């Protein structure tokens, strides 16, 4: 969208401002808007956000200015008020204001109509604005980094190894820096473990384990974030064995160090070593990363990435997260073309890259972060748009009824000289007033909904903390109010203004039965039911998909186990012997707790993000390339028992496997099938981590879903802690009772051995599987709410239409019953016309669902988007509800006293 176009749009919008204010300020405002546009991100989306915010500002000000004028006028001060009040309004605006005032007063006479219409539209606008605020905050708004459109994430695709990760080899990172010309700068980050930091803070206050990551000196500069206190890291601090320095998050600085501004330059105790604090990051800074990002995460504490670039493993080992900032005026395609050339050169130079078929893929940072959330959010946005349409249909119907009931009033006004335009304008103003009041109510709902969302914290929804009632949200609600007013108000207003007034006055009380209105009402009902069907089919498919996800067997037993993490600092635990000693002791302590059935530990629990990849080979051919990789984990003796994972063949690790005995591994079934399809894996040799490092397979276990509940991804290799130690271990304690009830005893068991150790992430194992389903659950929850809302609104709609039609025929029914017709017959005739409507709607709705089904496919798991069972079930439920809504008014009329009915006419 060009700047010129946006400026023109803004200029058009200024028409809503009071005229003389506009005359004085329009050109200065346009100029200020132009500067805001140039200052905003250069992306289309960023500009659109600026336009929306500015539009919200203009509309809000226009409303405010008029409100002031009204209140000033009512208190008789209109001519005193200062000169930007619209007291020299052109006649049209003045008339509009008068109509609006008139409408609000007229609502006092029909409070039920006004309340139902405003609530219905408010529900629709509120739900739509809520979803919009999430869509805007997550998908549209630029990232909170300076000029974030130029940030790019670097992915390495190792085609032959089926590994696609935003991870880069350190030497490649250096090569990019030297070879690339399209990037201003590259920066890298990795886990703190990569530089030997565990993240245990001691000294003042209780020991605390905090998330830590390591970054190159320019990392925050490339992101466009400057420390609020102190400075960035320097290049010298990145040297191997360089100084011990840290940068703290604002949160850690606040909670642990009481915002002490003199902390910079002083040292804190990290892993029992003094580290000098050199900087504090701004409040609200979050490192946003794609879900696949490796080792590095948003942290409370940052250390320099002191990587030894002189001693590195083969180039297909990737553990740096690399991001780059594009040069000004360079497009992504140009940068990608350059990186393709660099990849080609690297493949030609390094066999590891040649073998793995390495390719470099650049992904815009924003896209990378929100790509998982995007399909669900867009689907929800579509769904909620349907709810708003149904709400509009209901209100349009209400307005048709009201128009019919007011025909006499309108006829009198027209007879007294009101033109058709005047009447139509007044009716339209009524719609706009309903729309605006509805939007006000809707904004309250949106605000409540946003607070609820922030409290619920749906997992996998990035940027949740950034959501809020921004200018764009206000602008959207205003636009929605006006658009819906046009949708539900135009047809009834046109219709009412067109009716021949003399006929109305002549005909007498019974009115509004023209064929035209009836057809309009029927169309509204058909539309409503059809749209509800589309929504309910979507909801039904989601429910089935979620059920399938719940039935997934993840390869372990999630219930009945407590987990927690222990990290051992270098000081006190310098080597493998001490680490093993600690975990042996911990194992004994935990196993002795009442109710405990099994105890085990693992370097990283399943479903907790990316796991280190270990290269492996099982025969000469795979050893020559050494380009297969598996998820590698270090485990203690009882791990598989504690997880409830089935051992398929061979044995588990025992105390017989120790540092001096032969190195052994346990593999999972995918690896076993791949390497030894026709023979037993037990006793076979595997090379892991480096060529010619042979280990013997002693067991085969079930595959545990490690990244995602939906699919098995990669082979897995387990080695005993006694042969390869790990300082970070997540313990799993299986118990007969409620897992969390063990928490105090577990903490005491750790502290009985070493009271300086933090015990983190005390959670039931089940919490991890629940998190893994969280995204689907969130989408499902909202879809269910929207589907339910649609069903209720549609039922109310059809009830209203049939009820009205039946009332109109009550005279006829009275005569027919008086002449001896059986009430059942009358009910049947009403039901027959209702059934025709319902069948037509279900036919249309089913076709529309089929047409839209494909857009849902990405969100479904083990359920086809064309699942006939779901379609049939939804059609039956909807038909039952709709027919019930027909039956009730039919029954009521048929059972009423014909004499009373005829008298009342």
């Amino acid at each position, binding site marked *: 969208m060009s700047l010129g176009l946006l400026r023109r749009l803004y200029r058009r919008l200024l028409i809503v*401002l009071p005229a003389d*204010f506009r005359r*004085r*300020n329009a*050109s*200065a*405002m*346009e*100029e*200020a*808007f132009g*500067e*805001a546009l140039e200052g905003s991100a250069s992306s289309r989306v960023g500009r659109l956000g600026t336009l929306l*915010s*500015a539009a*919200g*500002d*203009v509309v*809000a*000000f*226009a409303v*405010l*200015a008029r409100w002031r004028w009204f209140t000033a006028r009512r208190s008789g001060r209109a001519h005193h008020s*200062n*000169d*930007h009040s619209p007291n020299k309004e052109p006649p049209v605006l003045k008339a509009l204001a008068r109509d609006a005032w008139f409408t609000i007063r007229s609502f006092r006479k029909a409070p039920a109509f006004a309340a139902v219409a405003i609530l219905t539209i408010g529900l629709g606008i509120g739900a739509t604005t809520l979803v919009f605020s999430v869509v805007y905050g997550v998908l549209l708004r630029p990232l909170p980094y300076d000029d974030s459109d130029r940030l790019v994430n670097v992915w390495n695709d190792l085609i032959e190894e089926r590994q696609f990760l935003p991870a880069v080899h350190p030497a490649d990172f250096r090569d990019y820096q030297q070879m690339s010309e399209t990037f201003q700068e590259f920066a890298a980050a990795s886990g703190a473990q990569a530089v030997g930091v565990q993240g245990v803070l001691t000294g*003042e*206050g209780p020991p605390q384990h905090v998330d830590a990551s390591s970054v190159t000196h320019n990392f925050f500069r490339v992101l466009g974030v400057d420390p609020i206190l102190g400075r960035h890291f320097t290049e010298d601090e990145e040297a191997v064995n360089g100084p011990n320095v840290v940068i703290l998050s604002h949160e850690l600085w*606040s909670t*642990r*160090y*009481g*915002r*002490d*501004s003199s902390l910079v330059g002083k040292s804190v105790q990290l892993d029992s070593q003094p580290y000098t604090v050199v900087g504090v990051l701004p409040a609200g800074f979050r490192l946003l990363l794609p879900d696949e990002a490796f080792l590095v995460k948003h942290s409370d504490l940052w250390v320099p990435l002191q990587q030894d670039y002189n001693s590195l493993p083969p180039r297909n080992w990737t553990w740096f997260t690399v991001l780059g900032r594009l040069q000004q005026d360079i497009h992504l395609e140009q940068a990608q073309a350059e990186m393709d050339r660099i990849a080609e050169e690297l493949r030609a130079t390094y066999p590891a890259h040649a073998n793995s078929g390495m390719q470099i893929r650049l992904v815009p940072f924003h896209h990378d972060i929100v790509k998982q959330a995007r399909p669900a959010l867009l689907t929800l946005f579509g769904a909620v748009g349907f709810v708003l349409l149904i709400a509009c249909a209901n209100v349009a119907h209400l307005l048709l009824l009201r128009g019919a009931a007011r025909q006499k009033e309108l006829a009198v006004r027209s007879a007294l000289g009101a033109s058709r335009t005047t009447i139509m304008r007044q009716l339209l103003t009524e719609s706009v007033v309903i729309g605006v009041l509805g939007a006000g109510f809707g904004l309250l709902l949106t605000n409540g909904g946003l607070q609820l969302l922030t409290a619920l914290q749906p997992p996998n929804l990035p940027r949740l903390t950034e959501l809020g009632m921004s*200018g764009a949200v206000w602008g959207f609600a205003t636009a929605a109010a006006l658009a819906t007013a046009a949708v539900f108000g135009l047809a009834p207003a046109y219709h009412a203004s067109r009716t021949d007034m003399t006929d109305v006055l002549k005909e007498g009380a019974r009115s509004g039965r023209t064929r035209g209105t009836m057809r309009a009402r029927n169309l509204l009902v058909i539309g409503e039911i059809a749209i509800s069907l589309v929504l309910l089919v979507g909801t039904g498919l989601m429910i089935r998909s979620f059920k399938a996800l719940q039935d997934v067997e993840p390869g372990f037993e999630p219930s009945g186990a407590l987990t927690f993490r222990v990290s051992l600092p270098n000081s006190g635990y310098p080597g493998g012997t001490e680490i093993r000693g600690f975990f042996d002791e911990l194992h004994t302590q935990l196993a002795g707790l009442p109710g405990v059935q099994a105890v085990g530990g693992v370097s990283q629990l399943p479903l907790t993000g990316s796991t280190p990849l270990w290269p492996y080979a099982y025969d000469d051919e795979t050893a020559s390339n050494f380009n297969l990789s598996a998820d590698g984990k270090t485990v203690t003796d009882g791990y598989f028992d504690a997880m409830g994972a089935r051992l398929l063949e061979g044995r588990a690790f025992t105390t017989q496997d120790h540092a001096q005995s032969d190195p052994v591994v346990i593999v999972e079934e995918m690896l076993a099938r791949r390497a030894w399809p026709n023979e037993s894996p037990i006793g076979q040799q595997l090379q892991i981590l480096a060529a010619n490092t042979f280990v013997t397979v002693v067991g085969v276990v079930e595959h545990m879903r490690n990244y995602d509940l939906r699919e098995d991804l990669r082979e897995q290799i387990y080695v005993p802690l006694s042969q390869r130690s790990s300082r970070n271990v997540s313990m799993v304690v299986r118990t007969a009772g409620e897992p969390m009830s063990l928490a105090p005893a577990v903490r005491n068991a750790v502290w009985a051995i070493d009271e300086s150790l933090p015990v983190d992430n005390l959670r039931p194992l089940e919490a991890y599987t629940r998190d893994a389903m969280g995204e689907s659950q969130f989408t499902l929850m909202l879809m269910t709410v929207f589907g339910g809302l649609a069903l209720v609104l549609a039922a109310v709609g059809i009830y209203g239409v049939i009820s009205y039609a039946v009332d109109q025929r009550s005279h006829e029914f009275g005569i027919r019953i008086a002449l001896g017709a059986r009430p059942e017959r009358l009910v049947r005739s009403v039901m027959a016309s209702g059934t025709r409507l319902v069948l037509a709607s279900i036919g249309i709705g089913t076709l529309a669902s089929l047409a839209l089904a494909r857009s849902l496919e990405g969100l479904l798991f083990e359920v086809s988007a064309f699942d006939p069972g779901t379609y049939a079930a939804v059609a039956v439920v909807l038909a039952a509800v709709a027919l019930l809504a027909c039956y009730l008014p039919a029954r009521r009329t048929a059972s009423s006293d014909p004499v009373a009915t005829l008298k009342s006419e």
Partner: protein
Amino acid sequence: MAGRRNQTLKPRWFQILLALSDQNRHGSDIVREVLAQTDGELRLWPAMLYGSLEQMAAEGLIEEVPDHVRPEGASARRRYFAITESGRGVLAAEADRLDGLARAARAKNVLGQERST
């Protein structure tokens, strides 16, 4: 103007007065200065900005700079504003009030939590 001193000043007005306290500025310049003053927290969008400027002018807190004393080469589309004596008084009174509040808060140790551990 008599009642003004007893009321608190709208934050937006306070920031605008503050921005004008050291030099005359035009609209976009005020927007930038307020952004800088508030660490990017407060962004004044055009309608609210000019609405506020007009109201403040009506209250005598600021005044529009006549054409002949504008900076040289300034775009004709821009409107320059200057703080008035009355505006300075109100700004100082409000700053005083805020300072008093901050002092009271500091005395109760709720500000900045100067190292409680």
